């Protein structure tokens, strides 16, 4: 069989460093969306199989290399593991997303220009579904900045939008008072 070479969504576009900020792509990970059927309890079975149970609304849970993010009402993303058979609608979304991390001192200022969330209210491990420019996105607050996930087809647009703002914020900071 031909061995195909996996190409990440932002291949050739990242990483970039502008001023105090760095934008990097996260490596490809296995990803499944899990939408439990009405009334179904799947958290215990998930925890048994993957080590991680379902998080609260607006949160993520992680252990080892496995993570579950709350991504919408009644919907979760399991990252880094294969889900067991559950009473839930499960779709494999590996390779369908682009994940990047924006870190550095001015990262909150950059996000404030492109995202309508109250980012100051987000603590480490908080997850929100919102917008980056006109793209729907999943935003996770990390210790070192913001993890942003968008549909894979938006990778180039996401990098473009964030780059522009990173340049602008950095240029503005360099202006004399």
């Amino acid at each position: 069989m031909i061995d195909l070479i996996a190409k990440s969504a932002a291949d050739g576009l990242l990483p970039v460093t502008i001023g105090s900020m760095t934008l990097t792509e996260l490596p490809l990970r296995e990803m499944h969306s899990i939408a439990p059927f009405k009334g179904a309890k799947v958290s215990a079975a998930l925890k048994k199989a993957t080590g991680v149970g379902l998080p609260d609304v607006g949160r993520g849970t992680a252990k080892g290399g496995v993570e579950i993010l709350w991504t919408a009402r009644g919907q979760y993303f399991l990252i880094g593991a294969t889900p067991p058979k559950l009473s839930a609608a499960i779709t494999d979304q590996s390779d369908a997303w682009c994940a990047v991390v924006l870190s550095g001192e001015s990262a909150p200022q950059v996000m404030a220009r492109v995202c309508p969330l109250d980012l100051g209210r987000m603590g480490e491990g908080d997850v929100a579904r919102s917008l980056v420019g006109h793209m729907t996105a999943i935003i996770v607050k990390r210790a070192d900045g913001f993890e942003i996930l968008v549909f894979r087809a938006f990778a180039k647009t996401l990098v473009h939008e964030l780059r522009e703002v990173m340049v602008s914020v950095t240029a503005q900071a360099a202006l004399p008072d």
Partner: protein
Amino acid sequence: MRINCPICGDRDRREFYYLGASDYLNRPAEGDLDAIHTYLHIRENPAGVTKDLWHHEAGCSSWLVVERNTSTHEIHSVTLASEVTK
């Protein structure tokens, strides 16, 4: 303008899609043509309190019933549509 989504909390208007009057939740029985006509086309246009359906499109994907005042722009309540139709 901000809408306090029962699931996500206080969010910017940009995350929401507006559908129209919450009358859409009360679908009449099949066959009753007058009722269907009213359901589809007849709307109040109040200067005051009105109830609309909004979709938290760029958020948790919930349908919401938002009670607001068209004169003062106050938002009085936000309820999950699934709770209203129960």
